[in-house]
Every structure is written in C-alpha cells, then in structure tokens.
C-alpha cells in the first residue's frame, strides 16, 4: 500500500507543479530527512472515507520560483512573503485535491481544510498538530533545478480497502 500511495503522490505532485508553475520535478529515492537548505513548510488536513494531513516542505529557492511562475512575474521581479505563502498554500490545496480522488476514486467525498503555512521555528509534525507517535504513511522526495520538495502523508488509521481505487 505504501509503495502505491507514494507512486500516486509523486505523480500528482509532479503533474501539479508542471501545470501550475511550469516546474519540472523528478523523484529522488533513498533520501531521508528534510531538504538540507532553508525550507518552508505547509500542511492541509482532510476528512472523508479516510482522514489525515498532507505536509509539504519545500526549499526556499523552489518556493520563490513557484510563486514567481504562478504569478507570471518577469525575470528580476521579486515575490513577497505573502506571495510565497499563498503559492505554497494553493499548491498544497491543488495537490491534496487531486491526490485524494487519485487514491480513492471520484465516487467518494472528501472535505479538504484550509491549508496553512507551518511556523519556521517548529518541528514539522508539532507545527502541523500531528502526534509524535504517528509516522507518515507515505513520503515522496522530489528534485527540482532550484532545490527539493518533500511530501508526507499522515493518515488517521488505515485506508479502508474498499475505498482504494483499482
């Protein structure tokens, strides 16, 4: 199940980054931890046939490029902190909105919460309100020209077998 979740999560995120911001990401395997350079992080929770939280950490340089491309800024134009936060939240919203039907199909209904940016000075799980004991059910590392993007899917329990899309 974990491998399937990670495959879907990787595909959905790569597709979202390409279509939202013309950014090309590639899976990189075997790396643990968070991106080594300065990062931003966000989370979005969802409820439905299964519930949980999607967390994204992203290199600051990737986030700058993401926000600039989403806004259609010209080279040399700077993004603001608000632009970058908004870009991260909107990207998480789109990834989560596409991930859940990719896992469970379009017959089921999920309610997706409001995405939030996590405090920079807090450990990610604590910032996202996820208990320490819960480990991610899936994790995807993506490489981009400007840095890394790492996604974690934390689930409240197991995914019922009957809701997984074939």
């Amino acid at each position, binding site marked *: 199940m974990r491998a399937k979740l990670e495959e879907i999560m990787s595909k959905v995120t790569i*597709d*979202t980054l390409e*279509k*939202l911001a013309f950014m090309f990401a590639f899976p990189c395997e075997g790396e643990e931890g968070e991106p080594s350079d300065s990062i931003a992080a966000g989370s979005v929770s969802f409820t439905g046939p299964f519930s949980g939280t999607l967390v994204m950490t992203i290199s600051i340089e990737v986030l700058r490029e993401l*926000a600039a491309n*989403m*806004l*259609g800024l010209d080279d040399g134009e700077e993004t603001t902190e*608000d*632009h970058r936060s*908004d*870009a991260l*939240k*909107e990207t998480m*919203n*789109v990834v*989560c*909105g*596409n991930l*859940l*039907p990719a896992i469970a199909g*379009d*017959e*089921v*209904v*999920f309610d*997706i919460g*409001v995405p939030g940016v996590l405090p920079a000075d807090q450990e990610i799980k604590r910032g996202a309100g996820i208990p320490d004991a819960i480990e991610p059910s899936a994790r995807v590392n993506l490489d981009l020209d400007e840095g890394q993007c790492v996604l974690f899917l934390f689930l409240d329990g197991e995914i019922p077998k009957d809701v997984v899309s074939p």
Partner: protein
Amino acid sequence: MAINILIVDDSGVMRSMILKTLRMTGVPLGNIHQAGNGREGLDILDEQWIDLAIVDINMPVMNGEEMIDRMHEDPEMKEIPVIVISTEGSKARIERLEHMGAAFIHKPFTAEIVRDTINSILGLGENDES
C-alpha cells in the same frame, strides 16, 4: 464584444494565475474585477456589469456554492454565466454544481480548457475572439 469578468478566489496568487491565463486565451477581455470571497463577489455583481463570474468553491466568509445560490435568488444576477474553478474531485459535488448551471474547470487548468469553457458557456465562436 469585450467580456467583463469577475474572478472570485480567496487566493491572490490563484486570482493572478486565472487572470494571466485569461490573457492567454484570446478571449476579448473587458474590465476584470476580483473578489476574495463570495460576499465580496456579490457586492461587485451588485455594482458592476459582469458578463461572466469565475468562482472558487472553498472560501472563507461565503463559499462559492452559497454565492451561486444567492445569485440565482436575485433577478439581476441569475442569468450571469458562472464557471467554477476548483480542486473538487467528487463526482457528486461536481454534478451538483453543474445542475446549478455552472460549468466546471478542475485545478490545475490549461489556457485551452479555460478558453474552450468560456467559449462554450458564452456561446462565443471563433469570430468573437482576439
């Protein structure tokens, strides 16, 4: 004919993306108005001549579905075409929006999808473009 469009989305970045995409579609654009939620969207519809509303669903204060409901209750607004641009993935919810008369575009979107949806909902032909 230039089309006056209202974009309603709580994300400023997404509103900018939609505007950027509209400029790529070749659809003749008139005045573009922006609102951060359904309540603000209704206020603009009350004050401005709008030919098309592009509306997100999940927004604070007033969501897109409630905004469309309110539009249907107002004789001045009920005929305004609505396109919902959202991440919604549930077939039942999308069908409900379509039953309300809205066209649906899934995020992430392309300029071609936006162009084709606008042309379809406004009944524009190729001669009306550019």
